C-alpha cells in the first residue's frame, strides 16, 4: 500500500484513506488466520472421539479376549473362564434371519425404484424408505413386539430377525437403486436388442453388473444391524443358555454387552469390554469386506 511514485504528493485525505485501508486489511488478514486455525482445531477435535473410544476398547477389551471367550458359555460371577459362545451364535443366526427377509425385499424394491424412475409410486416409495431408514431402532423393536411377540405369547429369535430385517429393507433398497442406476443404459439396450426378455435382462445383465455394489450395500446394512440392541430387547430378549432354536429367546452380543455393562460386577464389566471389542471387530471386518467388494469395479462409487 505504498503511494504511487509518479503521482503528485497525495493529499491528507488520500493518506488517511490509505491508512484506513491498510488497517482494515490487517484486521481482515488476522481474522482469516484466526478462523483458519479455529477450523483446523475443530477438524482435529472431530476426529478425537474415535481415537479415544478405540483406545479404551483396546485397553479394557484386549485383556479379556481369550480363546475361551469364543468357546465357553457365560459363567456366574466368581467363576473364571466365562465366554459368550451362545451370544456369538445368536448374533450370527439373527443376522441370517434378518438377511433372509431384508435382502430379497430390499433388492426387489431397489430394482423397482431404478426401473420406474419418475413414477409417482417410485417417488413416494423412495421418500418413504428414507423416512423408514430414519426411524429409531427402538420403534422397530416395539413394533415387532406388538406384531409378533405379543400375539404368540413368547420372545423369539424370529421376532428379532424380523425387526432387524425390516430395518435392512430401506437401506438395501436405496443402495441397490443407486448401483443399478450406474449400469449403462446401453448394456440393457444391447441385451434387449439381442432378444432377451426384460426380466432376464434385469436379472442376468443389469443385476449382475451391479452385483459388486449391491453386495457392498448389503454388507453395510448387515454391519449396521449387527450392533443393534434396542430392537432385540423386545424381541430376541437374550438367553443365558445355549439355544439355536429360532422359536426361543436367543442371546446376542449387543444384548449381552448391555446386561454385563449395567451389572455391578467387575468381572462382568471386563466381559462386556471383551464383547464390545469382538463386536466392533466383527463390524469393521464386514465394513472392510464391503469396501473390497467394490474395489476396481465402480471406482469412485459410493463406498459409504
Amino acid at each position: 500500500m505504498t503511494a504511487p511514485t509518479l503521482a503528485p504528493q497525495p493529499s491528507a485525505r488520500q493518506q488517511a484513506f490509505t491508512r484506513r485501508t491498510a488497517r482494515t486489511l490487517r484486521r481482515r488478514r488476522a481474522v482469516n488466520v484466526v478462523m483458519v486455525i479455529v477450523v483446523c482445531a475443530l477438524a482435529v477435535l472431530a476426529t478425537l472421539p474415535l481415537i479415544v473410544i478405540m483406545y479404551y476398547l483396546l485397553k479394557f477389551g484386549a485383556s479379556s479376549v481369550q480363546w475361551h471367550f469364543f468357546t465357553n458359555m457365560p459363567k456366574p460371577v466368581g467363576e473364571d473362564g466365562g465366554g459368550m459362545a451362545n451370544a456369538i451364535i445368536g448374533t450370527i443366526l439373527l443376522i441370517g434371519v434378518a438377511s433372509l427377509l431384508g435382502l430379497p425385499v430390499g433388492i426387489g424394491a431397489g430394482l423397482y425404484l431404478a426401473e420406474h424412475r419418475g413414477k409417482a409410486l417410485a417417488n413416494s416409495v423412495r421418500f418413504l424408505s428414507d423416512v423408514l431408514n430414519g426411524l429409531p431402532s427402538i420403534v422397530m423393536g416395539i413394533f415387532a413386539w406388538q406384531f409378533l411377540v405379543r400375539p404368540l405369547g413368547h420372545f423369539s429369535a424370529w421376532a428379532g430377525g424380523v425387526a432387524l430385517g425390516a430395518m435392512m429393507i430401506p437401506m438395501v433398497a436405496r443402495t441397490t437403486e443407486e448401483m443399478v442406476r450406474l449400469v449403462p443404459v446401453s448394456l440393457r439396450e444391447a441385451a434387449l436388442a439381442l432378444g432377451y426378455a426384460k426380466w432376464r435382462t434385469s436379472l442376468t445383465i443389469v443385476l449382475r453388473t451391479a452385483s459388486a455394489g449391491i453386495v457392498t450395500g448389503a454388507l453395510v446394512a448387515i454391519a449396521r444391524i449387527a450392533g443393534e440392541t434396542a430392537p432385540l430387547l423386545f424381541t430376541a430378549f437374550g438367553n443365558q443358555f445355549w439355544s439355536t432354536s429360532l422359536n426361543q429367546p436367543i442371546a446376542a452380543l449387543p444384548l449381552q454387552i448391555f446386561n454385563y455393562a449395567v451389572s455391578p460386577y467387575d468381572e462382568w464389566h471386563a466381559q462386556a469390554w471383551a464383547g464390545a471389542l469382538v463386536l466392533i471387530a466383527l463390524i469393521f471386518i464386514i465394513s472392510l469386506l464391503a469396501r473390497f467388494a467394490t474395489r476396481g469395479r465402480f471406482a469412485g462409487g459410493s463406498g459409504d
Partner: protein
Amino acid sequence: MSDVIGRVAVSPPAPPRRVTGGIEGSALGDRVYSGLIWLSAICVPLLLALIAIEIAVAGWPALHKFGFEFLTSSAWDPVNGHFGAAPAIYGTLVSSAVALLIATPLAIGISVFLSEFAPPWLRQPVAFFVDLLAAIPSVVYGLWGIFVLLPVLRTGLMPFLRDTLHLGVLPLFKGAAYGPSMLAAGLILAIMVLPYIASVSREVLLAVPRAQREAALALGATKWETIWGAVLPFARSGIMGGVILGLGRALGETMAVTMVIGNRPEISASLFAPGYTMASLIANEFSEASGDLHLSALMAVGFVLFVITVIVNAVARWLVWSVSRKDAGS
C-alpha cells in the same frame, strides 16, 4: 432344387416357434418379474403403515385414558397408574439440543477443513475416519460412557464448569455432580450424530461450484471471507438438512442414552440432573412394566416418538432434496 427350397421353407418353423415360445414365456416372466419387484416396493409403505397402526393400537388404552394430558402431564407414576410423558419429551428435546449444539460446529469445521483446506489425498481417509464413528454400535458408546465418560464428568468436567468457571450461578449448571445426567447424554449423543451431520455437510460443501469461490477470491476476499461469504451461504440449506438428519438420530437413540442419562422421570432445569428420554424410558421400563396400562403408556410414548421422528426425517429429506434439485437446475 424345389425340394431343397421346399425343405428350406419347411425347416425354418422350428427356430421361430422357439422364438415365439420365448416371447410368450418372457411375457409371463416379465409379468412375474414386475409383479415381484412391485410387491417388494409396496412393502415399504405397507411396513410404515403397519408400524404406525400396530404401535397406535398398543398405545391406544393409555392415549385414550389420559388424552392430551398424556403429553403435558409430568406425573409418571406407575404405582398409582398415572402416566404423563412430559419429562421424557422434555429430556429428549434437551439432550438432542445439547448434542446438536456441540456436534454442529465440529461437523461443519471438519467439512470445511476437508472441502477447503485439506489436500485431495487427505480427504478420503479423514472422511472414512469420521464415518467410522457411525459404525460403532450404540451399546458400545454406552459402555464407554459408563466407564470412561461418566467418571471424567463426575470428577473433572462438571466441577470445572460449576466451580472453576463459576457457571454454577446459572440454573443450567447447578446441583451435585453425580455423573449420570442430561449433560452426559448430550455429550454422547453429540459424538454419535457427528458423522451424520459431517457426511451430509461434506457432500454439500464439495458440491458448491468452483466459480462461487473464485468469484469471491477475485474480488479480493480472504480465504475465510470466501468461506463465510460465498461457500457457506450456498450450502446453508443442505447443511441444515444434515443437522435435522442428525436431530432425527439423536431423538431416537436408545442404548447409549439409557446407560448414561440416569433414568429419572423429572423435569429439571439443570443439565447436571438425571433425566429420561422417550427412547430410554421405553427401554428401561419395558421389562419391569407393571400391568397393561403401564405397557400401554410405554407404547404410547413410542407412538409419540414415531410421529416426531417421521416429521423430522421428512423435513430433513425435503431440505436435502431441494438443495440437490437446485444444483441440478443451475
